[in-house]
């Protein structure tokens, strides 16, 4: 191997930082080293890219319950004798690899459940876990002997997971996964993010394929979300937020087929109603957007809500085909 001094130093830094407990002084020292010479950063980036690419071997992990074998790759990693020598190395194909490996396994029978707009459904699975589907939701359930896999294809669902440490319960929504052993939580899949609210117990958030291999909730692997917290996962990462009990209750009021608000802006409230109804509310007057709305409403009972807006909030509603336009009653 090369004895390039910069390369050696870069590897030392990578290994040190990989311990994951670096104090800020150490990170400062690392940054000083990196900034000393552009080649330092380049050598480090090359090794960091290698290190990251190696994460992909996780998909080779024997099985969920297998004991840890430090020597596992010794034989498994040996090439087949006829294997072609390869030069090119596209390390970014993690998704493709995971998908390919998934396809190999013959999956247990999967079931699809769905609700229409304004619909609601509660199902109890064979393992006694319960799932509630909110409006316009579609999900796929696959109960295997080693793992319970749920794919939230769209919409929102709450999960009451029956405890079974030998069969982790993994909910995936796009690139976001939630791992639970026994707990109660809610997953809302939006266009560019996924919101996970934990009502009871705790869950782990991470890439679905990683979670499906995780044996337990391992806090050092991925963020844990505990009861009373909401996590928003998007391409920017995972943001955690603590919520008071009543805020959680409001968030989950849909389980009683209600919507609950406490000083939410009218534009947020309208967005909520529009998830449940074909007839869409449209705010045409910016001055009413910021109205603060509180109370309990049945989401499919639009007329009632519009009446309240007109009588108590100074809003004028005008029917327009399949839309209801909302403006300030004071205007004009």
């Amino acid at each position: 191997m090369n004895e390039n001094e910069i390369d050696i130093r870069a590897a030392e830094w990578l290994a040190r930082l990989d311990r994951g407990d670096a104090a800020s002084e150490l990170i400062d020292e690392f940054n000083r080293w990196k900034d000393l010479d552009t080649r330092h950063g380049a050598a480090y980036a090359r090794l960091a890219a290698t290190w990251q690419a190696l994460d992909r071997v996780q998909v080779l992990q024997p099985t969920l319950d297998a004991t840890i074998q430090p020597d596992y790759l010794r034989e498994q990693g040996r090439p087949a004798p006829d294997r072609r020598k390869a030069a090119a190395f596209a390390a970014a194909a993690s998704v493709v690899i995971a998908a390919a490996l998934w396809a190999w396994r013959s999956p247990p029978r999967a079931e699809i459940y769905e609700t229409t707009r304004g619909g609601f459904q509660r199902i109890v699975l064979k393992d006694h876990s319960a799932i509630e589907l909110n409006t316009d939701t579609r999900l796929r359930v696959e109960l295997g002997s080693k793992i319970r896999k749920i794919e939230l294809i769209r919409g929102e669902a709450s999960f009451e997971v029956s405890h079974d440490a030998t069969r982790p319960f993994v909910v995936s929504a796009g690139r976001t996964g939630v791992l639970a052993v026994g707990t109660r939580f809610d997953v809302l899949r939006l266009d560019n993010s996924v919101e996970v609210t934990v009502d009871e117990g705790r869950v782990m958030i991470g890439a679905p394929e990683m979670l499906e291999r995780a044996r337990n909730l391992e806090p050092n692997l991925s963020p844990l979300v505990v009861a009373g917290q909401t996590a928003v996962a998007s391409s920017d990462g995972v943001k955690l937020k603590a919520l008071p009990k009543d805020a959680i209750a409001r968030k989950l009021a849909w389980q009683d087929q209600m919507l609950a608000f406490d000083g939410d802006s009218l534009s947020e409230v309208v967005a909520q109603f529009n998830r449940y109804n074909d007839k869409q509310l449209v705010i045409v007057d910016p001055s009413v957007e910021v109205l603060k709305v509180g109370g309990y409403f049945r989401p499919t009972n639009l007329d009632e809500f519009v009446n309240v807006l007109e009588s108590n909030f100074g809003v004028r509603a005008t029917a327009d085909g399949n839309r209801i336009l909302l403006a300030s009653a004071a205007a004009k």
Partner: protein
Amino acid sequence: MHQTERNTWLAKEILIHERALRRYLARFFRNMADIDDAVQETYARLLGLSESAFAAVRNWQAFLFTSARNVTLDRIRKSRVVSYDALAEIETLHVLDQQPSADEALNARQELALLAEAIANLPDRCREVLTLRKLYGLPQREIALRLGISESTVEKHVAYGVRLCAEQMFAQRSGQGTRLDSAPTTRRKGLFDERK
């Protein structure tokens, strides 16, 4: 660019050409250490690109070799004894002739096999450490406990292991760890030798 994204970009667009890049540089540098140095300098230039310059690059492979060529030219100009032959030759070389052939591209399964193989080829202790770290995702501290060695020893194995893996995956030169490519690097006599 976010660090994870940058790593992915680096591996996917740049490092896959490192072998070819080294072959190219071997035309001008006799000394292995000089090649390492030129590779680093080339990467440093790519990573130092401004956001707008970065966004403007359409073909990273061509850009990589052009950068390497510029690095080489700079070195030649700075070296005390300027070889006009070297300058003449580098001006006429078509950098894109250095592309790895298309059939060298790997499918996802082969890539995975190569990664596993890079770890499999490590010396015993080092392989165990990287297996626990990467296959099982254990933190260094737990690896130390499990293998009954100190954390600083684990750290040393990680440092050594990542360099060896990078070498196998991207550099593939003669010497150790060449199971993936037993063909010796064909190296012409260097046109000049920086280390005199």
